């Protein structure tokens, strides 16, 4: 059914806007598209009001291309820069109240499971560092401890970008920002550590300058959340405005930050590995045959 809702009722196609027709005819719905095919299909997110050079927008575009079933995916977010783009995408987006995303997603994913059973309806929370680690902190952590089966993606620009550059819990210690006139006085919050502690089945850190890697972590996180448990991706998505990064240096900054404090990391539970290997053919998680080394010599 869900593929049908993005199609036209017979006879109506010629009356639909070109934008819509392009989405139906050349969009990713019902197809397997990859980030390496960017430019050859209509993306779920194209138009947006984000700043020039925004790394967060690139990450959101890559994430949306990577959703395994975009036609059956619902995103949940909160106030912040990210939702200005996410709300423009051609998939349903819940924009509720301040910091409520993980609680809304809990109710949404449970309600969808009641109605659709095992049919995948992927719920993906995408919110900023402030929305997730500050105002929505309790709901983020509790959704993990409750083992809610949805994906949580933090768009970490280490600042409140949308309200004009205030310190967040994910800002680095010493950083001078609005509301931190003498520099931030405590460390960047270790949300990755907390995600592991709370029992997330898949946890990854990533920066947007490696599209294939972004694609890989998003796919795994969404698939694992379908059946195994909560998954968490923390993505560095710089704010070139508040951190004064020239637009042509945004990717360079991402590379530097990756080398400095945002090294790629991936944590999977054994259950998640087994599930990805057996259900979705991720060969890297297939159990290594213990006797395999002996065979060539025989």
């Amino acid at each position, binding site marked *: 059914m869900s593929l049908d809702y993005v199609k036209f009722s017979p006879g109506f196609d010629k009356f639909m806007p070109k934008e819509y027709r392009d989405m139906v005819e050349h969009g990713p719905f019902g197809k397997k598209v990859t980030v390496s095919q960017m430019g050859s299909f209509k993306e779920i997110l194209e138009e947006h009001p984000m700043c020039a050079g925004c790394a967060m927008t690139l990450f959101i575009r890559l994430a949306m291309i990577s959703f395994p079933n975009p036609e059956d995916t619902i995103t949940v977010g909160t106030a912040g820069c990210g939702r200005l783009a996410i709300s423009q995408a051609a998939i349903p987006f819940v924009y509720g109240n301040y910091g409520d995303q993980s609680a809304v997603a809990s109710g949404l994913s*449970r*309600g969808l499971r009641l109605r659709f059973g095992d049919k995948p309806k992927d719920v993906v929370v995408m919110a900023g560092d402030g929305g997730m680690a500050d105002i929505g902190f309790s709901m983020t952590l509790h959704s993990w401890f409750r083992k809610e089966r949805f994906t949580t993606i933090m768009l970490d620009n280490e600042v409140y970008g949308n309200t004009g550059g205030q310190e967040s819990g994910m800002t680095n210690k010493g950083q001078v920002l609005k509301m931190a006139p003498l520099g931030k006085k405590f460390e960047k919050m270790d949300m990755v550590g907390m995600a592991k502690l709370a029992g997330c089945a898949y946890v990854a850190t990533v920066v947007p300058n490696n599209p294939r890697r972004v694609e890989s972590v998003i796919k795994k996180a969404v698939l694992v959340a379908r059946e195994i448990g909560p998954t968490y991706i923390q993505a560095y998505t710089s704010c070139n405005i508040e951190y004064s990064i020239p637009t042509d240096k945004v990717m360079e900054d991402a590379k530097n930050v990756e080398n400095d404090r945002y090294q790629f990391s991936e944590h999977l539970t054994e259950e998640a590995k087994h599930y990805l290997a057996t259900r979705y053919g991720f060969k890297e998680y297939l159990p290594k045959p213990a006797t395999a080394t002996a065979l060539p010599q025989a």
Partner: protein
Amino acid sequence: MSNPLEPEVKTNPQGDPITSVEPEQKTNPQGDPITSAAPIKVGGSSKDPHEGAKKQRVVTPEYMFFEAPRKREFITGSEAAKEAVRRSNVDFSVAYPITPQSETMQLIGVLYGEGYVKEYYRGEEEYGVMSAIAGGSRAGVRCFTATAGPGTLRGIEPIASWPGHRLPAVAMFTCRVVNAPLAIQPDNIEISYLLNCGMIVFHAENQQDLFDFIMKGFIIGEKNDVTLPVGVACDGFFVTHARNYVDMQEKGIKLPPRQAWKGAVPVLDAENPPARLSRDAPVQKSNFMAYNIHAVWQQEVWAAVERSRRYIEQYMGGLCAPDNVEGAEALIVASGSAAAQSREAIRLCKDQGVTVGFIKIRSLRPFPTRELRQLCAKAKLIVVPEFNYVGWLAKDVATAIYGYSNAKIVAGPHVYGGMSMPVEMIVDEVVGGLTGKKSIAVPDSAIMGRDVNQAEVAHFMQNI
């Protein structure tokens, strides 16, 4: 020394006799059996715990509300809420404890264990609970939760957004004190915060109202041209913890399920084009949202509140219940537990030879404005007793009938913070209002539309 002929009395570690686990059937003070309390399980049983829920059959709302035979039981308000939810085909419920609501949501947990509610968990706190209810309702399933006092205020940001998102969930508010100094006592000040959310708000007088209003709330809120959340308020303890007679249908029937596709706004299930609120330009497009979009959306929410009137009339017999209004010397207008107290006050007035009419308000939003204008047209005195300091009901009554009635409106008596409302206080306001005799509680009751009489205030101050 104990008499060996007497049965051994079980005691708790403090040595008090344990009386709560008696295996014999419970009865009310009148000797009627209480059947709603869970029977004590004896021995292991292989019986399917969901057996009763699986056997429930769907009936029409009309049959459920007006035709199904009912049996009278003597139960608490919390138990009445449980029994209403049992028969309401509820899919999803999120619980968080707060006095005096806790028992209600733990009883919903019992229903979950029995399969009558399909999904249930204990949330992190009320903001998370009300947000999860929003998520569940967007998924298209029928949702119920309950809270009280500080919990209502903690959850009010998400609650206040339910109407704008057109989420037809039902929430029960077992009203209690909210402000410092913190107390758990009855006080319905929290209703004043709910009145301007754009949700439908009912105020239950007793356990029977609570039972009926919850069930009818689902049906009214889910009507296509309404598609709004319904708040069912009652006064905490007086209704939640006290027992009363409730006429209930058999447990084997339930309301039809929520049909998500019937709502005024599509649910977010990726089966329908997304709700316009979140995606399409220019509604909530960004910071650049046109002011008129939010404006028209608010107009539509309040228009939907208005459209619910005919369903409230159809299922609940009207937004208010007038009694003996014609020819009465004075009128009492009340809702909730104040309505229950008013009935006794009216009887006492009758003993004194004073005929007092009564208007019980069932629905606070929508408010029975037209009804009150007509009913109060000839009234000379209207007394509005309330379980809160601010007198939100009296203000609504005064606003509704302004220009349509020359009645003097006495906003009071007011009790709050856990005070009870002796019926003599209401009688005093009625008699004082009619005769001009000084009321002992005048400053509590602020006579609306007139200057404060300093002498009356002084009289009161000398008497406390």
